């Protein structure tokens, strides 16, 4: 039985360079996106998850 999980190709050449550049830029702006409101909503959902009761 084949369950298909997408194989992520190894990045090479310009695709790899572009990815590295974006990752470096994101590291420079680490924790810059205020996600507190969204996370609070999500943690409230996780708290009432089925089976957690």
């Amino acid at each position, binding site marked *: 039985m084949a369950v298909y999980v*997408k194989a992520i190709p190894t990045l090479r050449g310009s695709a790899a360079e572009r*990815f590295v550049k974006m990752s470096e830029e994101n590291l420079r702006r680490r924790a810059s996106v205020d996600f507190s409101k969204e996370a609070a909503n999500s943690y409230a*959902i996780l708290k009432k998850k*089925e089976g957690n009761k």
Partner: protein
Amino acid sequence: MGYLLDNCRFGRLTSEIINQCQPYTCSKNADIDSFFHDHTQDNYRDYRLEMMGTTHCFFTDEKDNTTQPKMVCAFSLSNSSLRTDILPKNRRNRLNRSIPNAKRRFQYPAILIGELCVFDGFGHKTFGYNIADEMMNLIKTIAIDPDNNSSSRYLIVDALNSPEVIEYYKRNGFEFLFASDEEELEHLRSGHSSDMQNCRTRLMFFDLVVLNQQMH
């Protein structure tokens, strides 16, 4: 605060939940529709039994117990990784230096969003709420939760290559892994020697490092 929080129950997708819900469909994509049902080929149960991924769902919380719940949306998650094997040495070193405490490796942990769907009847905006965005925020929260026993730097998704779907992921901060359809096809062909002619899907990623995790 959100539609899913205020009106839905959340849990792992099971036959029990499916059986207690009203029939549901994802008419936009037959494969996705099939994945989230029992008695179909390559569905969420096969995925779970083979330990390939875990599927979660939201269904309406019918407090009066007389109405069958409605399946609202669902998603599956798997562990994955991003590899950047043959970067020029100077670029490789720069990336690895900027990841603190990391061993020098060229493979970065990620979570793959395998399938994701908002079911028919719960469109882009339901009662003024954006269900799909709320679901994505939950996925991001699961990924960055400090109580996790493992860490991931990225979310990855193989998004259907349609304007509506791509716009959704872009709105939620995802970027293309490849600059163009052509570049993506070239990489996929070189990896799988396939005869693919067009990009039915596009690989996208979200860098979790930008999220402020101070709230927890």
